[in-house]
């Protein structure tokens, strides 16, 4: 765990302790379970985003994809009677295809990631709304899918299964990002794509793979969100989720210029954001201030992190100078 991640962890614990002192109900198992459920949902989303951000890209269409694929998933299993073990991989494949399309436009046709995914944001939401004719996709009364519901919204030993899914995904993705050849390529491309190309890396494929991973993880979280809300009005479902995901990554130490950030960081970023949401509700802060609190904390977090870095560097410099001076004096 890096110093940066440790700092974030401490911030999370301090905020948690303060909230727990003001309102001890914060620590009730039910509250922790509810919050960790949402951490699971948003965490999966944020990990996907992180893979794209590492390459120096950005994926703005996440919220719209959550809406579109959520609508499709519910429509498939609730209205069209598709078996969920068929629908689920189908949705994941669709997510992967969306990612592939983005990656293709970005790497082959050389469009800017911001532009491609901004258009995606607009298009997918439009399609989702058109698909339901602006109506709501949801389950009929009494329609149940016990196994699916257990997997997505159920709990094991009191822990939400969505959170367990996040942990599993995080471990796998940690290995991929920090230990594998592919992960190294991602960092290299994020730092300097040209130089990576000159080292014989097929950068196009690697970047495309990052978008596909993001697409699949987004699709997965779309299913989780759909099963959590059990109803989707495509006009608003998932709105701003891309911002949550990006904010989690940035809080977790990712640079939007690419090539920086750790998987633990993005998970901790998600935890902090959800803790803040929980705090606003639990402490009775007017919900109109919810956004302001979130924005304020991100800003302060990033600022402290940045200033801390500057401070440390200065100290190192000073030390080096002093040591050098001492050495010179001794000679």
């Amino acid at each position, binding site marked *: 765990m890096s110093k940066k991640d440790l700092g974030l962890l401490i911030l999370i614990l301090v905020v948690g302790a303060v909230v727990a002192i003001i309102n001890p109900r914060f620590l009730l198992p039910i509250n922790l379970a509810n919050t960790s459920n949402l951490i699971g949902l948003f965490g999966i989303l944020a990990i996907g985003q992180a893979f794209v951000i590492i390459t120096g890209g950005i994926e703005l269409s996440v919220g719209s994809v959550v809406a579109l694929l959520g609508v499709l998933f519910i429509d498939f299993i609730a209205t069209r009677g598709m078996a969920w073990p068929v629908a689920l991989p189908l949705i994941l494949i669709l997510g992967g295809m969306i990612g592939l399309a983005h990656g293709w436009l970005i790497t082959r046709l050389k469009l800017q990631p911001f532009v491609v995914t901004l258009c995606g944001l607009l298009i997918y939401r439009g399609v989702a709304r058109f698909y339901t004719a602006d109506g709501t996709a949801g389950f009929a009364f009494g329609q149940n899918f016990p196994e699916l519901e257990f997997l997505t919204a159920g709990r094991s030993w009191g822990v939400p299964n969505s959170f367990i899914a996040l942990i599993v995904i995080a471990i796998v993705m940690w*290995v991929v990002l920090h*230990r*594998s*050849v*592919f992960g*190294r*390529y991602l*960092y*290299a491309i994020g*730092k*300097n794509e*040209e*130089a*990576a*190309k*000159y*080292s*014989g*890396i*097929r950068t*196009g494929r690697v970047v495309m793979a990052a978008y596909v991973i993001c697409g699949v993880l987004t699709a997965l979280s779309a299913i989780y969100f759909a099963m959590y809300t059990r109803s989707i009005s495509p006009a608003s479902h998932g709105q701003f989720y891309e911002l949550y995901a990006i904010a989690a990554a940035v809080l977790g130490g990712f640079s939007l210029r690419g*090539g920086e950030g750790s998987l633990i960081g993005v998970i901790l970023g998600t935890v902090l954001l959800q803790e803040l949401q929980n705090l606003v509700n639990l402490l009775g802060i007017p919900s109109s201030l919810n956004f302001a609190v979130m924005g304020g904390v991100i800003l302060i977090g990033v600022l402290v992190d940045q200033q801390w870095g500057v401070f440390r560097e200065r100290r*190192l*410099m000073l030390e*080096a*100078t002093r040591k*050098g*001076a001492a050495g*010179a004096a001794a000679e």
Partner: protein
Amino acid sequence: MWHEHDPEPKVRISEKWEPVFAGDHAQTRAHRLLSGMMNYSDASIGASTIAPFLSLEGVRKTYPGVVALDGFSMEVRPGEVIGLVGENGAGKSTLMKILGGVTTPDTGTITVDGVAHDGLTVEASIGSGIAFVHQELNLFENLDVAANIFFGREPLRAGPLKLVDRARLRALAAPLLKRVGANFSTDTPVSALSLAQQQMVEIAKALSIEARLVILDEPTSSLPLAETDKLLDVIKALKAEGISVIFISHRLHEVERVADRVVVLRDGMLAGTLPKSAINHDQMVKLMIGRMLKEREKAAESARPPGTVALSAKAIRTNAYPDRPVDLGVRHGEILGLAGLVGSGRTELARVLFGIEKSLGGALQLDGKDLVLGSAADAVANGIFLVPEDRKLTGILLDLSIAQNISLPNLPAHARRSLVSVRAEAATAEKQKSNLGIKAPSVATRTGTLSGGNQQKVVLAKWLAMNPKVMILDEPTRGIDIGAKAEIYGLMRALADAGVGVLMISSDMEEVIGVSDRIAVMHEGQISGILDKEQFSQENVLLLAVGKQPK
């Protein structure tokens, strides 16, 4: 879009040019000098009549883990040309950055016109008449040449909005371009210029500043001979106007030709100062690295006869000259030098051979078999490697460690079940570090903090750690010190002796003639001729470079 290529090359062959590389004779002379080794210092020439207008006193600059400058002092007098030499990482650029106000020293004082400062800002530096051509190019490719030359000092029209007087801007820029011998116009966008042409713009920019001191940090690193001559003339003209020049170069013969005084840096400290009379190649080398060089002669001799053709281009056409097909073959076991003037299309050819760019026509063959390259990855898979011209942009990843840079092209070999083994990576890197003599605290050091020469060695190391069939080196010794140069020549020769086909693109005449087994010369996108060892001469290369027949 690029500018029209002038059919009549505006290149004159300088008569004054004489080779410095003179083999044994120079060697013995150096030994003679060394025996009576004098350690020159400022005091020994203190009799100088003109008072310095700028002086540095006990300047020290440290970076984490590195002491770049260690209590350095020097002074600059009006109208003198100071040659500043030293190995890679000796601290030359750091020193200049301090004068240019880009960095501030930890300790020490800078005195300008009798006023002492702890450090300068960029504005203060410009304000006190210091013009600076950086080692790494600093142009804006979205602006045109004129805008770049007068950037930050635009002529204005009257009025509160500070509107740029564009007509005057162009009128002011045109003579400067002429002076540096540029063959492009003032409104060419910089994005359309080659690296060497950009360097000319940088020099024009330095000339445009009403300067008392012009700092040139390796301005000739990618300039071929003719342009270099122009620059040296410019320096002399500046001196005649009473302007001081600090000239940094690893091409010592250039320093020899223009410098009034040579300051030699070693490990951030003053190794010595040579007055005009004592300036010679071997003396400078001796002060720089503390010993004499022998490797170069060895490098020139081929240990084996050349083999079959390794990589050949058949009527390849590139983006730079879509109408000119190129035919060229590199043989196993030889070093094929590729010479030519600025913008003759050598880099473009190298990019096509390495698969970075698609050819517009023609075919490639590797060992007689047709080769289709879709990307650099294909080239690497076939054992064709490129050491690119622009190190900072394409050669290495400045933010990665030395070890990570070296293992990058061959990562799967350093991985088990596609998980990277840090240990294998470090082992490879350590081996290369000691083989090439890369100067760095450890292989985990960030490459960006290395000096230019050591960065270049890292680029080489990453390919040497694999098994090349054909190695293309585009200006391999650009910005590299004389010692390291010799080492790199040795490495190229070792590669060739091991049967690798080596294609060396170079603008350094001395290097082309001294190292190659054959020399191909490019002129406006085409091979105008290939010289065999017995035809080697500066004149022949230059004649071919301007499209004439050799003698």
